């Protein structure tokens, strides 16, 4: 029993890591008032660029850097369109997802070695492996927390840091003000566009890192649609966490946990059909969204940043 729990916890954390990176990234972006629906495309691009890099260079660090750079480039496009050009953010985000999905798949068929018909699919590269922390990793059940790869350990630090930055620092206060009331922020001397650029790009970087975790650790290698819709689940997780980085962990663990249990069930050879089990995370996503919307109508103040997805223009006549 203990072994089973430990293994579920271990898989939960591993599955949750990429979700947490992307959720925290998107929370920061949305807190500045920018809705980025390009997550799915950015995660896929992060995953493919990271895996291609690690395959040819063997350097995990370099792979992470390349993935981050991919995130910077894609989210800069979104930032430019939605902040400078004041385009419709839903359209811009969706086009980044469409582009990212297609282009990642294209790269997956072109970046590979000639011996594999230029395909990346089916190749094996360097990957992050669990690092045991002495003593702590021997704890019953909870030991699973301390037998993870480096990217998961970083998550343990990122969550409290992201919370502290948002609620306890001057920059965090500015960020929240820009998303809630850009007019006020502007009148108080905060550069609204600059803040939105910074956090849209920072968010995109974290999202791409989430993608890289998939191809470097969770399911090492490259397959088409390696994210399995995680980019969309993250959108729901942001709402579930009520735009608070410290709550990102619960949503990510819930969905990671559903993944883990579903694997376990399939491994035990249950009679429930596999497609039905695979649907589980998505069904829970819908249920969570309905629930949150319901709570929001009951109590107005759960709310999304007031200026989310609204372009800002100074009110000269």
């Amino acid at each position, binding site marked *: 029993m203990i072994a089973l729990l430990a293994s579920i916890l271990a898989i939960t954390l591993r599955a949750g890591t990429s979700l947490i990176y992307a959720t925290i990234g998107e929370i920061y972006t949305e807190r500045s008032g920018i809705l980025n629906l390009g997550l799915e495309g950015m995660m896929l691009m992060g995953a493919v660029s990271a895996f291609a890099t690690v395959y040819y260079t063997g350097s995990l660090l370099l792979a992470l850097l390349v993935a981050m750079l991919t995130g910077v480039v894609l989210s800069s496009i979104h930032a430019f369109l939605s902040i400078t050009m004041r385009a419709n953010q839903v359209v811009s985000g969706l086009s980044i997802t469409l582009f990212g999905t297609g282009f990642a798949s294209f790269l997956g068929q072109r970046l590979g070695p000639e011996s594999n018909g230029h395909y990346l699919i089916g190749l094996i590269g360097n990957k992050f492996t669990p690092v045991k922390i002495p003593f702590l990793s021997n704890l019953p059940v909870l030991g699973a927390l301390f037998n993870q790869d480096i990217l998961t350990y970083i998550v343990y630090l990122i969550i409290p840091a992201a919370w502290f930055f948002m609620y*306890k*620092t*001057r*920059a965090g*206060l*500015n960020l*929240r*003000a820009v998303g*809630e*009331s850009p*007019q*006020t*922020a*502007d*009148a*108080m*001397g*905060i550069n609204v566009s600059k803040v939105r650029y910074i956090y849209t790009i920072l968010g995109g970087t974290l999202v791409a890192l989430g993608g890289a975790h998939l191809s470097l650790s969770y399911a090492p290698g490259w397959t088409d649609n390696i994210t399995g819709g995680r980019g969309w689940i993250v959108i729901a997780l942001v709402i579930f966490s009520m735009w608070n980085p410290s709550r990102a962990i619960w949503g990510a663990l819930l969905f990671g946990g559903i993944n883990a249990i579903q694997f376990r069930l399939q491994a035990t050879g249950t009679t429930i059909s596999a497609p039905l089990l695979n649907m589980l995370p998505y069904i829970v996503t819908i249920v969570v969204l309905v629930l949150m919307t319901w709570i929001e109508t*009951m*109590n*107005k*103040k759960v*709310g999304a940043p*007031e200026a989310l997805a609204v372009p800002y223009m*100074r009110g*000269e*006549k």
Partner: protein
Amino acid sequence: MKNDQNEKYPIVEMIGITKQFPGVLANDTVDLELFSGEVLALLGENGAGKSTLMNILAGLYRADKGKILIKGEEAEINSPKDAMKYGIGMVHQNFKLVPTMSVAENVVLGLDSENFVLDLQKVSSRIKEISNHYNLKVDPGSIIWQMSVGEQQRVEILKLIYRGAEVLILDEPTAVLTPQESGELNRIVKQMTGEGKSAIFITHKMDEVMEFSDWVRVLQKGKLVSVVRTQDTSPKELSRMMVGRDVLFRVEKKKANPGEVVLELENVKAMNDKGLEALKGISFSLRRGEILGIAGVAGNGQRELTEVITGLHKVTEGRVIIGGKDMTNKSPLEVIKSGVSHIPSDRVAMGIVGDMSVANNLAMKEYRKAPLTQHGILNPGRILEMAKKMISSFMISTPAPYTSVKFLSGGNIQKTILAREIGACSTLLVAAYPARGLDVGATESVRKEMIAERDGGKGVLLVSEDLEELMSVSDRIAVMNEGRIMGIVDSAEADIESLGLMMAGVPMEKGK
């Protein structure tokens, strides 16, 4: 002018300020001088350029021409931050506060001088010091959206003092306050000027100018038309300077001749959008041939009141009876069919469809019936014909009947709504802030229409924040505070002070 200012020196000078907006010359070589320790009133009608001039001083707009001197030295003000460096801070009409944040967080927002890791404890104790000094009554931990408008204004002032403002610009500060709160604001400003700070007041209310200011500058259509010492002038003279002619303060009307009851509310309760009780048991009745005014500071349930009557808002308890029929929680269409018309407070969002033509907007109530519709098909010729009649009888100034209504001025949009609603009205007219934001001429014609409707035997419910308007137009005045009626008085016997007390939540004394 400067000779009698031996100790006082001009702290702010604006010279030859010119600002052009597309199609409007908002400021035309305007000069301004503000002395330390004094209050300057900036007087003018809507669109006279007062706010533009102050937004330039506060760094939100940039002047096309002209210069600004602070303490005699030329200043380059390109942003609110620059203005603050020179000690200039502005309280805008729409407060610049983040509703979901606390007072303390709002006060330090955007301040680079604070530590990177915020010490809100320290900020709070400094806020308490300031609020004790000026007797401002503000709790640093309160969240803005839960505070009243008066409290929010105090936060704005406190924020400016915290940042070291020496010159306070207040844009129509009393528009949202009860008379008592206005008095309190006056006291705070006086205390500040006593300490050598100074203030500029944007307003179009004469009594305030007389009470608050030392100097008055009057703007008209972007130009500075006069500069006077407050003690050397009178409200009458000022209003002449402001509009360029004498203004009627009282509207001529005959004595009311009330008939049968047309609207009755019995202990009506309703929730607002936040799920809090907005109407806490409202009862009153309104007769044909009578105008009942609803006074009160905005946000005390007036919107919910007009909406429960017009079927737009759910009643949780009590009854709404229109023309003898129970209309509680009936649909807006059923209410319209019973002859009720509605002039909504947000006229652009709820009163018109901006992209549709004036003619179609005028037809929006009658289009369901013949002659505008036959066998379910609209007859554009008849709609145009009807529109032309209405346009001429209500003197709507529009290039053509098929012009999009959004291109009209505020006054003409309101006339369009009035024409449609009055045309369709047979029992009751519910008018929310019908003259808000209109110029003197348009205001007068709106008020005359209200009275004409009354004399035509309809009941009129007039919601307004303007006590002068209520006292001159309506026959009785009900005062609302936090979802309750504090009292109903005959407008002939009403005085501003007792109305003000009721607006602040003191019920009318019994036996009166």
